[in-house]
Each structure stands twice: as structure tokens, then as C-alpha cells.
């Protein structure tokens, strides 16, 4: 993908820790990435690897305490969001950066009608007439593919199906025409056909609105359909970064390889589906050295001791694995 556009969001060495009892969970442990205008960036990883937290950090929604952001910066249109106070952040939330959450069931307030909730998003940031807000809401709902929006607006969330609710969430996130939409596993809680529709909707809207999208998911299949750039995250760090082609064709990190191997589309008939042994480490008790080493099939002595460097495999394709790097470059 050409690097024609301006950088919209630039995250440098972001760290988010959580304090509990006597331990510190290093949920996000130094990640850096850029999102350019109109670009779709994906954060991929298993649950518990810090994807959601890093997204929440952008909007300043990490609860502090127990959370803490000890270092890094988040530059949005040149401003460091971490330096902004709560009021300035409110200006940005919803207006310039908006977010869609994983659980459409619980993310809508059950005691307000969906019309109220969307109109609220509009009137919070723009001074518009009530009737105007109403009209815009209808428009938004139509855009996200809700039939008879006038009636739906008077409904409470529990009257809607999961897919419809997610559409409402999307409509709400688009209300103020933000430059960046963060979608945190927007399709995970939905069944497969609906997932597809929603993905479709995302692509459509992105075309139409020219907005950037930070898409967070654990599902590589989804990523393939939507992403421009992919960041594979493991235990609070990026394991591998690259565009769709690079990652899918030429995965360089053993973790990415494992993820790809476990995709059902890659499995051969009759063979059990591959799964990476073990589980994501507790962020409070990360192993020394490479955080992936206890699960890594190519683990070497060094991996257990030294934290791996980011290695530059090809054009804008990095992976945090000196072992494969040595293999590939060395051969």
C-alpha cells in the first residue's frame, strides 16, 4: 500500500501497566505504530495480549488507578493525547476518534432509546437543532442498513437483535464523522453470517467516508478481508508487523506462523486443526526473555534469556524473532 497519506495517529513505545495487590501487570509493554488517513490498521492477537488496552489508551479510557501509563506517546494530528486533560480528550472522543466495542449486547445503555443515544452523540459535539439531529440520526441508521429507522429509533436496545445493535453502535460511532474509528472486535459476539454483513458494512463505509480504521481482532480471516497493515500482538508487544500480503505469504514470527496454521482454511481434511500449545502468559508474570518462548517450537537458549529485538525482514515488514531472522538472512 502506498504511503501517500498523512499520518493521522502515531503511537510511540506505549506502555500500560496495571497494579494489583503487590504485582504489576504489564498489559501493553512498549508498542509503536502509525495509522494514516483512510488506512485500515489491524491489531491481531489472542485475548489477553493487550490489544483492547492499547486501543483504550488512545481514548484515555484506561481506568487510572489501577491502570498506569508509565511511558510512550500517542500523537494524534500532532497532539500528544497522553498530555491532554480530561476535557480536551472529551472533545476528541466521538468527534475525531470514536470507538466500537466488542459486546453490542451490553454496550448500549438499556434505559435509553437508541434514537436518544445516537442523537446524544451528535449533540454532544455539534450544536444542532433537535430536528436536525433527528434527521441526521435517521440518515446514519439508513447508512448502516437499519430498515425503517424512524421506528427503530424509538426502540430500546433490548428490542433489537445483536447484529442490529452492532449496526447501531457503528452508526453512533460515525455520528460526528470522525477521522479515526477504533473497532474492538466488533464482530466477535455475532454469528458468522452477521459477521460478514458487518464487515461488508465497514468496507462500504470506509470507502464512502474516507476515514481511518483501527481494527482489533483475534481473527486472521477477518483481517485478510479488511486490513491494509497488520500488527500481530503477543503479551503486550508486537510480534510482527507488515501488510496483508507480507504477513499471510511470509510470516516471520513463530507466533504468526502458529496463528496462520490454526486457520481452518489452511487445515487439511482429516487432520486435526493445529493449535498453539499453552496459553498467553499472565501479564503479571511474563516469562523472561522472549515472552513467547515457552510455547515456541523453535526456541533456543538465547530466547530464554534475552528479550528479542525487532528485525527488519523486508520493506516495512518486521518481526521480533532473531532466530527466524538468522535462518532467513543466513540462508
Amino acid at each position: 500500500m502506498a504511503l501517500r497519506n498523512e499520518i493521522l495517529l502515531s503511537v510511540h513505545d506505549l506502555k500500560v501497566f496495571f497494579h494489583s495487590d503487590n504485582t504489576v501487570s504489564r498489559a501493553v509493554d512498549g508498542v509503536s505504530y502509525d495509522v494514516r488517513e483512510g488506512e485500515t490498521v489491524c491489531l491481531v492477537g489472542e485475548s489477553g495480549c493487550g490489544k483492547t488496552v492499547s486501543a483504550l489508551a488512545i481514548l484515555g479510557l484506561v481506568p487510572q488507578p489501577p491502570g498506569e501509563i508509565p511511558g510512550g506517546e500517542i500523537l494524534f494530528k500532532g497532539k500528544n493525547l497522553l498530555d491532554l486533560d480530561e476535557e480536551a480528550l472529551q472533545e476528541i472522543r466521538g468527534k475525531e476518534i470514536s470507538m466500537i466495542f466488542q459486546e453490542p449486547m451490553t454496550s448500549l445503555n438499556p434505559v435509553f432509546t437508541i434514537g436518544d443515544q445516537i442523537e446524544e452523540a451528535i449533540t454532544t459535539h455539534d450544536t444542532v437543532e433537535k430536528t436536525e439531529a433527528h434527521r441526521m440520526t435517521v440518515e446514519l441508521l439508513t447508512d448502516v442498513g437499519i430498515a425503517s429507522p424512524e421506528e427503530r429509533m424509538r426502540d430500546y436496545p433490548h428490542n433489537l437483535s445483536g447484529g442490529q445493535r452492532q449496526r447501531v453502535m457503528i452508526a453512533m460511532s460515525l455520528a460526528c464523522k470522525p477521522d479515526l474509528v477504533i473497532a474492538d472486535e466488533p464482530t466477535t459476539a455475532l454469528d458468522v453470517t452477521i459477521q460478514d454483513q458487518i464487515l461488508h458494512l465497514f468496507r462500504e463505509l470506509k470507502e464512502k467516508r474516507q476515514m481511518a480504521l483501527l481494527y482489533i481482532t483475534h481473527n486472521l480471516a477477518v483481517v485478510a478481508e479488511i486490513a491494509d497493515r497488520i500488527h500481530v500482538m503477543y503479551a503486550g508487544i508486537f510480534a510482527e508487523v507488515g501488510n496483508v500480503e507480507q504477513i499471510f505469504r511470509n510470516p516471520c514470527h513463530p507466533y504468526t506462523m502458529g496463528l496462520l496454521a490454526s486457520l481452518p482454511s489452511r487445515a487439511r481434511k482429516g487432520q486435526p486443526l493445529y493449535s498453539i500449545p499453552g496459553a498467553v502468559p499472565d501479564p503479571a508474570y511474563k516469562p523472561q526473555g522472549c515472552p513467547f518462548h515457552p510455547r515456541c517450537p523453535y526456541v533456543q537458549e538465547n530466547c530464554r534469556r534475552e528479550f528479542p529485538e525487532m528485525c527488519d525482514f523486508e520493506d516495512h515488514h518486521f518481526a521480533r524473532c532473531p532466530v527466524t531472522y538468522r535462518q532467513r538472512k543466513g540462508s
Partner: protein
Amino acid sequence: MMGVNEKRGSAFPEGGVLETPKKTLFQENWGLFRKNRLAMAGLMIFVAFFIIAVTGRVLTYGRDPYFNPALVRLQEKLRPPLSKPNLETLKPEEVPRLGIYLFGTDDLGRDVFSRMFQGSWVSLTVGFVAVGIAVVIGVFLGGIGGYYGSSQINLGSLLASVLLGGGIIGILLGGTAVGVLMVLLGAAVAAVLIRMGNSKAKRPIPMGFSVLFLNLFSVDVLITGLIDIMLCFPSFFLILTVVALLPASIYTIMIVIGLTSWMGAARFVRAEFLSLREQDFVTAARALGVSNWRIIFRHMVPNAMAPVLVSATIGIATAILTEAGLSFLGFGVPPPDATWGNILSNGKNFLFDAPWLTFVPGVAVLIVVLAFNLFGEGLREVLNPKLRER
């Protein structure tokens, strides 16, 4: 909130280089609890109070107690705290053990310190026994309501139990003939039920008896009905009525407070059981053929105890206050047993002459009840994940 800690505690299955330190549920809760300073203070006072009360039991009862709370020294009445006894007028055995009246003396010259000491035991007993009764009844009825909720009660068993119960009450009240008749009838109905019930599957029930198997309402309706009925009585008034009408004694008060405050526990347990009953581990246990009672007591009761524990802790505090309130009206634990409540309410008559008679027990009750409440609140926060601080 964030799903960050969700996977805590799962160890790596193979080649696990670093084990996540394992914590039992208790350790984890204890860790959380220890962070709550108010609750910890509460717990410490609670433990101290417990120790004092038990020591009080040992040192203030018997023929010749070490601290004699009932020893009257009229000439030494209303001495302020820390004052020295007038040794000339006292017989050697009447001199207070500590050499001084630590908390002063009351209107009969009794040593307030000894009385407080004894009172701590009595107050503690009142609180614990009353709440114990309430918890036992509550867990029992709530458990039945929650577990057997949908079982039906048929006309026959209702008839049998009403007849039996009524008959026994009748006999106790003196109506022997009617009572015996009712008991016999009840037994007959019960016998018919058992025989028919056993052979129910094999042959049809004769016409006349089938009415006995007419289902009336479910167990749950009965239990919730009972709870509703109890809740219709204003509790302090119910206690007051009963305490006023029955002969006053420490046991009456404990039992009455217990009998009128089980509804909370019953509701908690019932609700908890209703949800636990649907959970997999219970279904599994049932599939394995574990008996109902074992399921209830081994699997469900421990799981339902958390809210009961919290309400019991706070219940003890309330019981101590209730006893003090009853004492104010003159219906508390009667002499010679001293309780903090009756020391306090006796003392208020001398508020202007001997303020310590009011303040010593008043502040003591305040501290202990506060400790119980804070401890209970701490427990609540720890045991309820939604309120947990992380």
C-alpha cells in the same frame, strides 16, 4: 473490567518454565481484605472483643468470680472512673481487684469495669446465638425453597401436617381430647398417603383417595409465602410484643431476635440456590446419583454462604443494638446478668450525676457495633466481585 486478568492462574501445560504463583480463593480474598484498612480495623476489634468476651465469661461467673460484677458496695456508689476505693469501709473481699475502680461504680456501688467485662460476654452471646438461629432457619427454609422449589404439596400432606401440628398444639394448650383426635386423624391421613404413594405407580388410586393427591401449591410458594408473612410484621414491634409478653430472660431475647430476623438469610439462600441448581456442577452431581441432601450440603450451601456470612456479621451488630434498644424500654436482658445495653439504659438515669455510666457502655457498644459493621462491609466488598477494587 478490562479482561486483562481473566486468565490468571492457568499454568503452562508443558515445559512450564515459570509457574504463575497459585493462590487459593481464601488467600486471594484475604489479600484483598487486608488492603481494606477499615475492615481490618473492624476485624481486629472483633477479635479483641471476642477474646475479652471469652475471658469475661471465665472471670466473672461462678460462686466467687475473679471480677464480681454483682458485688454491691452501697457506700461506694457513683464513684468516678479511676477513683480509689475507700478501704476503711470495705471488707477485704469487697475491694476491687484492680485496686481502683477503672470505669467507676454504678448506683449500687458495683464495679462498672466488672460489669462491662461480664456484659461483653452476654452481649456477644446474644448477638451470636440470635444470628445463629436466624442463619440456621434462613439457610434451611431458603435452601428448601430454592432446591425443592417446584415440587408440589398435595392436599393430603397439608391435611396431615395441619392435623398433626394442630393436635400437638391442642394437647399442649389443654384441649387433650380434641388434640388426640386430631393427631390420630393426621396419622391416619399420613399412613394412607405413604401406602398409596408407594403403590401409586402400580395400580390406580381408589376414587375417594385421589383427592388427597390433589396438588395445591409448590414448596417455593409456601416458603416465599412464609417469608412474606414474616415481613408483614414491623420487626422491632414484633420483638417488643413478644419480649414484653413472655417472661424476660436472656434466652427469650436471643430466640425472639433470631426468630424474627431469618428472612434476609432465607431470601439470599433461596435466590442463590435457584441459580446454583441450574449450574453444571449440580447437574453433574445429580447425574452421578449423589443424594439430594449431599448435593445441598456439600455443593450448594458452601457456595451460597457468602452473602449469608455478610448479613450474619451485620446481623450480630444489629442484634446487639436491638438488645440495647430493648433495655432502654426495660425489656432487655434482666438482672443480674449485665449487658452493655442494660448498663447503658440504667446509666442514663444518672447522666448528670455520673456521666461515665452512660459513656463507658455507650462508647463500647458504638465501637464494637462499628467494628462488626465495617468488617461485614469489607467482607461484602471482597466476596462480591463487582464491588472489588483491583
